[in-house]
């Protein structure tokens, strides 16, 4: 029987020998040192005596430099201290993250007048969940490339202008006539919509067009055709026992991932006494974040989505005939899913990511057939995340081309970049007399406009957003506007002849609506107002459109060759995250690549292109480049990444890259734009297309992080099983521990005390512990960005990531689970990996200066200013979670020019951007900014723990559970991370550990490092019972697991002591 393999790189699975050899190298990059040859040291370029001379000189110089002058520091108090503000004490203000229709109610942490961290709002329907992009949005506020004042175009150049001038000239221009069009991304702010209505009323003939960069127009039109109106419903993933997704990345980027992850994880939690969980099937072309978390996946070409949907519908109620499906696996999959859907009528949910209205009509028919309406799909609270209809934009472009548009005002939308025919839009825009952009940055469209009137960042704004009917959230400014910006609503008000500011308008609007100023204040304080409307379902299902849709799908031309599918990355989204260094450096969920987009191809395609998937492929960042051509749409050259579990003929490329230079050094130079490969079918934009590919004959570097850390062949790091296997043998993991106790703690049975030579740490008071439920980790990376923000983790740039110098304190390890054939992907396991705070930590024993040691609260402490940078600790860490400051990424060194390194590697411009005085405003003042040459790692957010303890002491009471939370914990929208005092029997962490004794494990338990982070085994809901033997019986426990991964290698027995 074939065993499952857990692997991270093709080298590991295909080329074990070389993989192991290269794992031995301490430095994987080429070192910049001059070679020492046989001539001996004295003849080397820098002989010993010179070395000593330089050493002596620099020591003396350093002493002098450090001692000569003590700078005079000033302490400048407020002139007139505002009430409520205490310098040094953080304030929290509820506000709302809004980005092109995405709405996440958040709470901004404001220290001394500066917002420095975003947390989710617990009162909201998102239940304190956040995304990586929401977490990173605070950095956007301090982006050095934000537009700082209004400008108008004179000739080809922009010139600064004043609001008086702008109001006067534009006001006159609007009054003079000509059609006015307001082009925005989805607007779901009730007060803004009213302002727009007033504006349109003032200028008859003007109109408002909403266009989304990645559109849901097909879904809106399909829902209209199915009798529900042009709306999108609320999906209840928590109520679904069977979830089927046809290419919808609902855990990553589709509609409202925070909300969906909350609901989805509710159905995925396992009660050990009675194990059951929802079943998730995914049909898709490439490997998406959501697909990676599915229980069973079936791949097909993107153009076949309609056929798959139709086949499902046909299997369910038989009223339609589906085109034949050739692929036997897919066919069997459809039959299985259909049977499962039938068996779970009223508890099933089918969603589709396609923007083809016909596919969505069929999906609606499937949901109707399974009785999802009213159960898992709620039409009483339609959502407002996306409202754009693709045809509106193409019609507008036609009008613009015909010279029918006098004034075009743009907010949020960026068609010069996202439009399927950007050249056409650009040409059409030239025919518009006055074009005004309200965008915050000089993006591709703004650059072409005649005026830029930059609007505030959301953290500087008043505002509101209605995510779905009855769920309103509010924005309030958390900082005085940094630049001479103005809310676009104020501009619209002014130009409509209303001289009130948006702030006043907003206040009046809601005071009138809520009845009193007190109610308004309360709403602002809470940040949300959720008046759930009575369940009045708008419209009812109508099958009228199904026949036509099914005919259209059947009639659609089959694409025979390769296909491209465009997807969004969790980090970059439609392109709005591209200017954010934290998001660019966030490794992608699946590929673990940073700072780039690339073509994800299947193993079959790699084979066809002659790419050998050996260790060299993984080891060297240079990846072969292919030329992707779409008939009539030009071509793009992109490096490839081979991903298992892709449809053989599908090539997936992320949108949002290849930005223009004016957006700054972060966005510019990263990847290529592929929006031009979208196509318009007369109704909607399609995000897949037929392509031809050819090798470009060159290579390009991609900075991936997955193989930066090695577990030295130890495999008991990640544990995964299936529901079937778990039910049959629930104690596999627990037995492993029991076995260790039997072997290494024979006399007392106490593995902790007996299996070590070292003493046991006394922990008289608190003891911190963390638990990560791998069943609830979908790999989205919100925690990684939150960690960046909370702990001042530096951004190192692509060149340094390429050199294995990435600084993430928290990484999410991605493991592919496959059979013997690596392409036979059974699933993907995501494991957040941070310092395990071992109670018997190997790093502590090897530090020559005791810079890292153990606290009474179970924290492995790191004293940066004590560290001399030997890196022994990092070498001895079995989990490779320690990060070394190879360069002066933060500018924290005493010597000014330390960042200007030529010999050992030039730093990317983004590093300098992160050190700008403006950008540094985002730093957390409670956390030291580390300098070059010191080691750093996860601290369990000790600053937050200390603050929570201090609050309790000041209030003269014991610490309550849940007061001390880590940044990763609060960021997680699936509540995968639980943290607290394990000495408190009533704490959540104690309860979780007590309730999950069968799934709970510690990484590499047999090493006796005694981590304080526990994990819960990942369980996939399949019946497959053959699972990896985790050992647990007899002497060969560890050896057996080795055999599973290293067919050729010999199994080594792990020693339970330190190396």
């Amino acid at each position, binding site marked *: 029987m074939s065993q499952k393999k857990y692997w991270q790189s093709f080298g590991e699975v295909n080329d074990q020998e070389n993989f192991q050899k290269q794992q031995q190298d301490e430095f994987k990059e080429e070192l910049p040192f001059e070679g020492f040859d046989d001539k001996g040291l004295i003849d080397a370029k820098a002989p010993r005596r010179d070395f000593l001379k330089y050493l002596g000189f620099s020591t003396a110089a350093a002493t002098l430099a450090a001692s000569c002058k003590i700078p005079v520091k000033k302490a400048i108090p407020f002139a007139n201290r505002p009430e409520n503000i205490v310098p040094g004490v953080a304030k929290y203000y509820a506000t709302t993250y809004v980005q092109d229709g995405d709405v996440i109610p958040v709470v901004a942490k404001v220290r001394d007048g500066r917002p420095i961290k975003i947390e989710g709002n617990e009162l909201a329907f998102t239940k304190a969940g956040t995304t990586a992009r929401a977490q990173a949005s605070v950095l956007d506020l301090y982006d050095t490339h934000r537009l700082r004042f209004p400008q108008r175009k004179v000739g080809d150049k922009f010139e600064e202008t004043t609001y008086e001038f702008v109001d006067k000239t534009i006001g006159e221009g609007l009054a003079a006539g000509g059609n006015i069009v307001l082009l925005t991304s989805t607007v779901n702010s009730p007060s803004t919509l009213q302002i727009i209505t007033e504006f349109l009323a003032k200028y008859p003939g003007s109109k408002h067009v909403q266009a989304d960069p990645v559109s849901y127009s097909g879904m809106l039109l399909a829902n209209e055709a199915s009798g529900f109106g042009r709306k999108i419903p609320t999906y209840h993933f928590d109520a679904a026992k069977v979830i089927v997704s046809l290419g919808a990345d609902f855990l990553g980027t589709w509609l409202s991932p925070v909300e969906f992850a909350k609901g989805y994880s509710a159905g995925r939690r396992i009660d050990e006494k009675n194990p059951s969980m929802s079943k998730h099937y995914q049909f898709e072309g490439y490997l998406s974040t959501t697909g990676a978390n599915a229980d069973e996946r079936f791949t097909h070409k993107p153009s076949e989505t309609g056929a798959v949907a139709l086949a499902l519908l046909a299997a369910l109620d038989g009223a339609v005939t589906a085109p034949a499906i050739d692929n036997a696996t897919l066919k069997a999959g459809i039959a299985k899913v259909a049977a499962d859907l039938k068996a779970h009528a009223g508890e099933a949910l089918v969603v589709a990511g396609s923007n083809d209205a016909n596919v969505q009509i069929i999906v609606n028919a499937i949901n109707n057939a399974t009785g999802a309406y009213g159960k898992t799909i709620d039409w009483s609270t339609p959502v407002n995340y996306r409202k754009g209809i693709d045809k509106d934009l193409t019609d507008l472009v036609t009008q613009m081309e015909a010279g029918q548009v006098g004034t075009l005002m743009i907010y949020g939308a960026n068609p010069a970049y996202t439009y399927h025919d950007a050249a056409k839009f650009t040409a059409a825009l030239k025919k518009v007399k006055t074009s005004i952009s309200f965008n915050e940055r000089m993006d591709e469209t703004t650059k072409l406009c005649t005026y830029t009137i930059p609007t505030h960042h959301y953290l500087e704004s008043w505002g509101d957003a209605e995510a779905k009917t009855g769920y309103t959230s509010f924005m309030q400014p958390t900082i005085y506007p940094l630049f001479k910006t103005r809310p676009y609503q104020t501009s619209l008000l002014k130009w409509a002849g209303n001289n009130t500011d948006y702030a006043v308008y907003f206040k009046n609007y809601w005071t009138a609506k809520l009845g009193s100023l007190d109610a308004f204040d309360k709403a602002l304080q809470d940040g949300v107002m959720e008046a759930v409307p009575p369940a009045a379902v708008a419209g009812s299902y109508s099958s009228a459109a199904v026949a036509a849709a099914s005919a259209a799908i059947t009639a659609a031309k089959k694409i025979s060759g390769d296909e491209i599918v465009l997807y969004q990355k969790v980090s970059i989204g439609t392109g709005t995250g591209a200017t954010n260094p934290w998001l660019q450096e966030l490794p992608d969920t699946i590929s673990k690549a940073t700072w780039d987009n690339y073509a994800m191809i299947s193993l079959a395609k790699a084979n066809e292109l002659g790419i050998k998937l050996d260790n060299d492929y993984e080891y060297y960042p240079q990846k072969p480049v292919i030329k992707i051509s779409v008939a009539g749409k030009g071509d793009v050259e992109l490096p490839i990444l081979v991903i298992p579990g892709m449809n053989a003929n599908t090539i997936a490329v992320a949108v949002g890259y290849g930005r223009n230079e004016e957006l700054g050094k972060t966005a510019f130079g990263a990847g290529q734009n592929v929006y031009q490969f979208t196509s318009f079918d007369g109704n909607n934009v399609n995000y897949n297309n037929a392509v031809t590919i050819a090798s470009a004959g060159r290579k390009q570097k991609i900075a991936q992080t997955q193989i930066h850390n090695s577990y030295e062949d130890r495999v008991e790091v990640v544990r995964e099983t299936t529901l079937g296997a778990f039910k049959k043998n629930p104690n596999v993991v627990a037995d492993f521990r029991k076995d260790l106790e039997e072997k290494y703690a024979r006399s007392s049975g106490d593995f902790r005390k007996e299996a070590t030579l070292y003493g046991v740490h006394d922990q008289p*008071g608190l003891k911190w512990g963390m638990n990560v439920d791998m069943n609830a980790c979908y790999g989205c990376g919100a925690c990684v960005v939150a960690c960046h923000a909370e702990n001042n983790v530096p951004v190192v740039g692509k060149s340094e990531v390429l050199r294995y110098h990435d600084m993430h304190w928290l990484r999410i390890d991605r493991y592919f689970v496959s059979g013997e054939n690596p392409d036979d992907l059974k699933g993907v396991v995501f494991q957040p990996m941070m310092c395990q705070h071992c109670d018997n930590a190997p790093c502590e024993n090897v530090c020559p200066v005791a810079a890292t040691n153990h*606290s009474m609260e179970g924290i492995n402490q790191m004293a940066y200013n004590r560290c001399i940078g030997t890196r022994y600790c990092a070498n001895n860490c079995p989990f490779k979670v320690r990060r070394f400051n190879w360069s002066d990424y933060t500018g*924290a060194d005493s010597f000014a020019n330390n960042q200007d390194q030529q010999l050992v590697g030039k730093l990317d411009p983004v590093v300098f951007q992160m050190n700008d005085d403006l950008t540094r405003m985002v730093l957390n003042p409670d956390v030291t900014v580390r300098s070059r040459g010191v080691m750093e790692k996860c601290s369990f957010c000790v600053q937050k723990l200390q603050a929570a303890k201090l609050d309790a002491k000041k209030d003269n009471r014991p610490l309550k559970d849940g007061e001390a939370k880590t940044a990763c914990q609060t960021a997680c929208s699936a509540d995968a991370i639980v943290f607290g005092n394990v000495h408190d029997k009533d704490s959540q962490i104690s309860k979780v550990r007590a309730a999950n004794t069968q799934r709970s494990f510690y990484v590499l338990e047999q090493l006796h490092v005694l981590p304080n982070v526990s994990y819960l085994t990942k369980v996939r809901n399949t019946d497959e019972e053959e699972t990896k033997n985790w050992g647990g019986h007899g002497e060969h426990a560890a050896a057996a697991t080795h055999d599973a991964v290293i067919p050729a290698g010999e199994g080594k027995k792990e020693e339970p002591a330190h190396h």
Partner: protein
Amino acid sequence: MILCKPIGQRLTVLFLSLFVSIFSVSAQDAAAGKTLFMSKCAACHNVFKDGTGPALMGLEERHKWADHNELLKWVNNPSAYMAGDAYTQGLKTKFGSLMTAFGDITLKDVDDVVAYINDEVAKKAKGPVAAPGDTPAATDSSNQNAIIFGVISLVLAIIALILMQVNSNLKKMSDDVEGILRPEPVPFYRNKVYIAMAAIVFFIVGGFLVTKGAIGLGRQTNYQPEQPIYYSHKVHAGINQINCLYCHGSAMESKSATIPSVNVCMNCHKAIQSYEKGPKLYTEDGKEIDGTAEIQKLYTYAGFDPKNAAQWDPSAAKPIQWIKIHNLPDHVYFNHSQHVNAGKVQCQSCHGEITAMDEVKQVNELSMGWCVNCHRQTKVNFNYSDSTGNQFYSIYEKFHNDIKSGKMDSVTVKDIGGLECQKCHY
């Protein structure tokens, strides 16, 4: 560091005795009244002049204030009292704001304050009184000891040297007498033994000094910069006994104690417009300071015109750029509220005898050794069973059991992790 401990202890004793003495004196009404007046009333009231509130001279002759019970009612709850009282309503109209409520004031307190006011009025009638003498500064005897020991060692060393020379001369003489031939003696500065000894001494002393100097790099003990305004802590916190936390209130809630903003200064200085009664002020180099002129400097920052007090607009004030004296390196996290509020440490424990300083200087070296020493010795407020202990420590079951069983007699900051790196460095 070696010197620090005894000095620290001495200072603590000095302060304890100071506090005790203050308390013993304050048995008298007027003295108790003065303390109360300074801490509660002086922010708004002056005895002789109108400030934010009316002058309190002749208080008992006005309204019903001869009856201290009425006064008490007013002070305890001004808004309720004013509701049925035309006189106080008039006061509010005149001064623009209602008096702050002091719910914790008792009748005895009112008596004391009134006694103090009457006392002040009587004193003024008698003519100016000489300022009370300064508390005699404790002479630093350990420094004197060091000098004495040094002199003695030097004298002894010289004597030893002379004796050695005498000895060698005598030996030479006796050798000459006995006719023993000896090599020509080398002068002492070419004597290898002497040179070696001198070199060893040089290395030891030099090494000690270099190391000491290197450790002290960046430390600023005795740092006493000149501030933009000559602000005397002695006058404010010493003579007038303004509570430290009145101005540095953030020390209770924040990591920073914060320097008060201009509007806090102006709370009092709207009324106190000149420096008259206090002792003469001198800078460190003996230059005399005109206190009234320094108050004028404050007015310049505040944009305040004493002649036109009612027109003052606090929002027009400009911040004062004070020079920071107590600096910690960036990698140290220090939280005032942790020490002042949770740990109940007196400000003077670290900042020295501030109440005796005209110009503030850094008394302690603020080094890690100094911090850690205190963490080793300071006892934590641990007895949760009696009401004085901090309930936070109730989770330390082991220590409580040890105390009960007599294994431990007290718990220091060290015992609960006060010496661990990540208490201060993160």
